Structure formats: structure tokens, C-alpha cells
């Protein structure tokens, strides 16, 4: 190819634009991380005296770690609950026909699309109505219910990808449906289950809108941070935020690797053109 054609110029311009968008997406986070090391607090420019003080402060902050434990409990429970119900729902959507199936599918997806406040308040009213006290249990129920759709979507995609003939072969060879489920279906869904679980865990750990209305005495991590914000900004919050960011990134990247292995990306399929 000789010289710069209009096509390559356009490509270059788009590339710069894309880089700018990426900068917009990442700069605030980079700034946040940077200032978690700043001795003189959050603000001003440039950050001069770098220190690990805030992290030290963070690690001795009991309340924060209590809330981390709470979040882990809730997230762990939510993963189990969402995966179980999500798996059943995915199987139901894939294999069963029942009246109201379309409504069921929309209903399951609703918490994902509706603003969190609506789902949170509805569940609050339900809790009051059924006499439940607000505590980690209500938070757990809220997360688990809201995140069923995440599990359902991932597992449904995994089911669609699965070779139906495998189950037929299993039955043909004498296995009962129950055995087939455990020996054939579930192992085939292993990657989808792990991917869904990772995503649900991450979302639950970060969940704030629904949790806002279901929280009792014990805080989850996001709400503990929120409470701190009311008192004022300190780089300690930057520090915990940086840690959250780091862990989330790792989890998301692992999730992505698993997901592309299990379900495949359209991009990959397109790149493999003959």
C-alpha cells in the first residue's frame, strides 16, 4: 500500500478518539489510586509526599474489616442462591413450556434493568409486610433474588452451546435423567457456572442501591464506605477503594477468560474466517 489513503487517516482519527475515551474511563480511577498514597489528603495537585500511611490506617480499621466480612458472607450466600435458582430457571427456559413463560423471563430480568431503588424499596415493603427484621439476611435475600438473572443468562447461553446429542447418548446408554444431569449436563456447564459465580460475587460485593434500603445494623463494605463519606473525605477511603478496584479487576479478568473459553466471543468467531 502506498501512502496514507483517506481510509487510514480516518482509522487514525478514530484510534485517537478511542484512546481519548479510554483516558476518560480510566483517568479518574488512576487519580484515585494515586491519591491513596498522598500524605496531604485528597485534593490539590500534584500529590507530593507519597506514603503508605493510609493503607496502614486502613488495615487497623476494625469497622471496615467487619463490613468486609459481612459483604463476603452476603456475597457467598448470594452466589449459592442465585446459581441454584438461576440454573433451574435456565433449564426451565431451555426445556420446559409453561403458561406465562414469557412473563417469567421478563420478570427475572427486571431487577437488572430497573433502577436499584425500585427493587430495593419493593423488597423493603415486602420485609415489613412479612415482619422480617432488616439485617444481613434481608440483604442476602435481596442480592440473591436480584442477581438470579445474571446466573440465568450465563447458564442459558451455556446450555444453548451444549451439544444436545450428549444427553441423548447418555439416556440411550441407560442413564436416568437424574444421572444424566449430574454426569453430563452439569460438567458441561462447569465453565458457565464458574463465570456466573464470579460475576455474581463481584456484583454483590459492590452492590449499593438495593442494599441501601435493606440494611440493618451490620454494614456491608459499600455502605460502610458510604457512611464514612458522610463524615468527610480521607485518603483512607481512597486506599480501600484502590483495593476494591484491584480485586475487582482481577476477578473480572478471570471471569472474562473463563467466559470466552466456555461460550466463545463473537469476535473470536469472526476472526476465524476461512
Amino acid at each position, binding site marked *: 500500500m502506498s501512502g496514507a489513503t483517506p481510509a487510514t487517516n480516518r482509522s487514525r482519527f478514530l484510534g485517537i478518539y*478511542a484512546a481519548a475515551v479510554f483516558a476518560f474511563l480510566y483517568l479518574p480511577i488512576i487519580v484515585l489510586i494515586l491519591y491513596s498514597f498522598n500524605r496531604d489528603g485528597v*485534593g490539590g495537585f500534584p500529590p507530593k509526599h507519597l506514603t503508605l500511611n493510609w493503607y496502614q490506617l486502613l488495615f487497623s480499621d476494625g469497622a471496615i474489616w467487619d463490613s468486609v466480612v459481612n459483604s463476603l458472607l452476603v456475597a457467598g450466600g448470594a452466589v449459592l442462591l442465585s446459581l441454584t435458582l438461576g440454573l433451574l430457571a435456565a433449564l426451565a427456559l431451555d426445556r420446559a413450556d409453561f403458561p406465562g413463560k414469557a412473563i417469567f423471563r421478563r420478570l427475572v430480568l*427486571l431487577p437488572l434493568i430497573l433502577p436499584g431503588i*425500585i*427493587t430495593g424499596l*419493593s423488597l423493603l*415493603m*415486602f420485609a415489613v409486610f412479612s415482619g422480617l427484621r432488616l439485617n444481613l439476611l434481608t440483604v442476602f435475600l435481596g442480592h440473591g433474588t436480584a442477581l438470579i438473572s445474571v446466573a440465568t443468562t450465563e447458564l442459558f447461553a451455556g446450555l444453548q452451546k451444549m451439544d444436545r446429542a450428549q444427553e441423548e447418548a447418555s439416556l440411550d446408554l441407560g442413564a436416568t435423567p437424574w444421572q444424566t444431569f449430574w454426569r453430563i449436563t452439569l460438567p458441561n456447564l462447569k465453565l458457565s457456572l464458574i463465570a456466573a459465580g464470579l460475576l455474581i460475587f463481584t456484583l454483590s460485593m459492590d452492590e449499593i442501591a438495593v442494599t441501601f434500603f435493606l440494611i440493618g445494623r451490620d454494614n456491608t463494605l459499600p455502605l460502610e464506605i458510604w457512611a464514612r463519606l458522610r463524615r468527610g473525605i480521607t485518603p483512607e477511603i481512597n486506599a480501600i477503594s484502590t483495593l*476494591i478496584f484491584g480485586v475487582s479487576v482481577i476477578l473480572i479478568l478471570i471471569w472474562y477468560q473463563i467466559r470466552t473459553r466456555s461460550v466463545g466471543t463473537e469476535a473470536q468467531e469472526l476472526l476465524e474466517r476461512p
Partner: protein
Amino acid sequence: MYSRAYKSIVSLPPILWVGLFLLLPYALMFAHSFWMVRNGMIVHDWSLRNYATLLQNRVYLEVLFRTMRIAAGVTLLSLLLGYPLAYYMSLHAGVRKDLLYQLVIVPLWVSYLVRGYAWKTILGSEGVLNGFLQYAHITHEPVSFFLYSPFAVILMLTHIYTPFVFLPLYASLEHIPRSLVEASQDLGAGSRATFLRIILPLSLPGLLAGATFAFVLTLGDFLAPLLVGGPSSIMIANIVQSLFGTAFDWPLGAAISVCILLLTISLLFLTERLEKRWAFR
């Protein structure tokens, strides 16, 4: 291939759970919107008075319109950022598109709070942006309108929702067979004509899905105004929040929520119909 027993076992638990923990709560909210508060207690007196209050109270309407304006602004900006990004990645990035895709989804799933907080620290009078501007001698005094303004809310939410808009858009673009683009060029259309006539129409379903998502979620957002919005940027969900909090009027709050819910569902319904019409499968 699947027995009735099998189908029942897999369908019943999720249906029951979803019915109990989703359908019933939403129905409760719906019911509450028709009740009222008397003497500090919620009374099951059925009427439409809450809705009447909403329609007649100018404050509520103003806040609602402000919220819709902010939502529209966020959606538009997210599209302006997200579409060229998706287009570049899908059609110009080649083998690096997978890596770039991961770079986009990371901010998507990383904590809302972390990102909102980042903007809070950046935009304040004592914040990083002001610090930078003064350091670079671009300004001499802190600029105050960065933070605690609708501008800050729009900025923060655009930051949050651009990846949301990007995802379905990118998927849509990836779905367009490359042979269609080649066919268009083969028939004599340059890049611009190919984009306007082929790529844009076929990417509309994804564009619509992403835009709806951003609009609806911004509409119901109450955290952004609390973090970076200040009193001048109160959005409709903040009113709901206070009605369930200190202003104790659950029925009125429920009525507003139902309105948001109905607005959301009708938008989703509309876009679903449009997507079906424009899906060309």
C-alpha cells in the same frame, strides 16, 4: 425428551421464588401507591390521591423533568463516546480488539461507588482538577461549579454508563457480517456511504438497547446527586428516598416509584418492538 416430572422440578422452584420475592414485592409497591399516611401510620385507604398530588405539585414535576433532562444528557454523551469506540474496535482494531474489549468491561463492573467517589474527589473546590488547573496556571481560584451541580451528575453518570452503552452496541456491530461491508464497497460505496447505509441501520438494535439502559438507570439514580450533585441537582429518586426516610410518606413514595416503573416498562416495551422491526434477521 424431558419428562413432565423433570420439567416441573426445574420450573417450580424458580417460579415460586420469583413470584414470592419479586412479583409480590412489586405488587406491594403498587398497592402502597394507593394507600395513605394518617397520624404517622400507613392506612390502607384506597384512592388515587397520591397520583393527583404528583400531577398537581409543581416541585415534583420540575424535579421529574430535570431528571429526564439529565438522563437524556447522559444517554447522548454516552452514545457520543461509546459509538465511535465500538466502531473503532469492531472495524479497525484488528487483533487487538479482544484486549481492548477487556479494557472496556473492567470499568463497567468495577464498583459504582469507587467511580463516583473518584469524581467527588476530583471535582471539588479543593479537588484534584482545581489543583491541577491552578498548578498549570490556567485558573487562579478554585472553580466551584465543577462539583455540586447537574454538570457533575451528568459527568459522573456518563462515566458510569458509557461502558453500558458500549456493550450491546459492540455486539451489534460484531454481528454484521464482514461480507456485507465488502459487498457495499464492491458495489461502489465508499466508507461514508457504507457506514450510513449499511453499518448504522444494522447497528440500531444494539444502539437502542444501550441507550435505553443508560436512560432508565439514570432516571432512577439517587446516589449520584448525593455524591456529587448537591441540592441543585436533586433527582426524582432522591425525593422517593426521602419519602421513605425522614419525610415518611411511603404511599407517595410508592406512587412515584410506580411512575418510574411504568415509564421504564413502557420504554423497554417500545424499544423491544423497535428492535424487532429493525432486527432484519
